[in-house]
């Protein structure tokens, strides 16, 4: 039996889909069999980020409604053999699926795959309830903003009331320079509020924008900072003990100069 992991956040735009795509691809790079499930019915994005949009024939709703077999709806990634996507329907809404159906779907998928990674929609309504229904564990994505942390806290509470304890936390889009200056919430502050285990931090990285637009997950890139951070999280997920990334704040030449002069 594989493991079902839901990627959730409460707040929108914090990087759930990007994280799903990169973790999934990262795990597949380690030779595991992975399926990504887009639970954001009606506002699907994961297929675009994975560059698989034009391969969609059947979707998740077709599977739950019995219009096709599960295997027919699974799209194999164009780069990695062990990576699959189950896309969401675009012309339907969240009510097209029930938590029970999602639970069954996750169970079926977990028999075939080592990891089932579910991209949860923003919000706490039906879509959220569907997405977490079949999950064994949850990964919360947040950004170092008060609003995102507030929503993450709410989500952790909701997960607990559904009997899903000990979620792991990813803090996304950290800007080390701003943290250093005290302009951005720092990691310790966030963990103190949320009181959950951190599984990784991801620095703000322009390469994420580039890779998302190209439909190629960044994790395979060897030079980008965010890619290395995602690879570390993958290793931690697979049980390795990897120390947290530390960021050298790249001060400008002028800044260093001023320091030397004692300003």
């Amino acid at each position: 039996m594989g493991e079902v992991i839901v990627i959730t956040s409460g707040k929108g735009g914090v990087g759930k889909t990007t994280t799903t795509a990169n973790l999934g691809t990262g795990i597949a790079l380690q030779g595991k069999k992975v399926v990504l499930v887009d639970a954001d019915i009606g506002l699907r994005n994961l297929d675009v980020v994975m560059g698989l949009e034009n391969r969609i024939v059947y979707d998740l709703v077709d599977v739950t409604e019995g219009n096709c077999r599960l295997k027919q709806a699974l799209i194999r990634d164009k780069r990695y053999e062990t990576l699959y996507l189950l896309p969401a329907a675009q012309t339907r809404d969240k009510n097209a699926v029930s938590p029970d159906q999602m639970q069954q779907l996750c169970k079926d998928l977990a028999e075939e795959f080592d990891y089932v990674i579910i991209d949860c929609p923003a919000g706490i309504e039906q879509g959220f309830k569907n997405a977490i229904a079949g999950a064994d564990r949850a990964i919360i994505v947040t950004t170092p903003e008060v609003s995102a942390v507030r929503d993450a806290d709410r989500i952790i509470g909701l997960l607990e009331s559904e009997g899903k304890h000990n979620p792991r936390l990813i803090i996304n889009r950290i800007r080390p320079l701003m943290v250093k200056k005290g302009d951005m919430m720092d990691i310790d502050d966030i963990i103190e509020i949320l009181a959950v285990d951190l599984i990784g931090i991801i620095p703000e990285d322009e390469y994420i924008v580039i890779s998302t637009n190209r439909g190629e997950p960044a994790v395979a890139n060897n030079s980008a900072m965010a890619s290395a951070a995602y690879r570390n999280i993958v290793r931690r997920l697979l049980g390795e003990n990897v120390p947290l990334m530390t960021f050298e704040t790249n001060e400008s030449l002028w800044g260093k100069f001023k320091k030397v002069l004692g300003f």
Partner: protein
Amino acid sequence: MQEDVVFKGSKGGLELVINQAVDFAVILEQLKEKLESAAQFFTGSTGVKVVSGTTMLTGDERRQLINLLSDYGLTLSEYPEMDASKPEHGQALDTPGDISTELCQEVEGGQTLIVSRVLRGGQKIVFQGSVLIMGDVNPGAEIIASGNITVQGTCRGIAHAGANGDKTATIMADKLMASQLRIAGLIARAPDNQDEPTCREIARIVNGSVVIEPA
């Protein structure tokens, strides 16, 4: 005076019924009078659906109609094409008011649904007959027609022509960049790095596969 131009209020908005047996110049004249006399009434209304008689207006006549309506703050929102076999004067084609939701129509073959707007992601049109979209079809939008599909604009969504199995159905667009083209039972997907087409293109089945060529 016989009324050759009639405004009707319907659930979907304002409908304009034109008697096409009459000369177009007369129609325009009458329409102008009507709009003039009831200018107050029409303020605030935006879209007008034309429900014309037997034949289509020519492009030039259409332009004149649009210009006249726009003088009074009205726009032409929908313009159905009538089948020649249905000469019933002034008969309203039952075009549904809300095409943003799934639209299923059971009409005898040979009809064309004209949609004058951009079809956005998540919007779906299902029609028994041909579909003409006067606007773009965005990624994530879906058109399923038992007949042909024509897009006067860029087609980036999914187009399924000949959905009931008609292998002679075609899909045409000013810029055919559909993520998927389906004709009858065949599916063709766009290449991963798609270039912008430089001319109007048409897709049809040739020797059992979907072929795209300049139209």
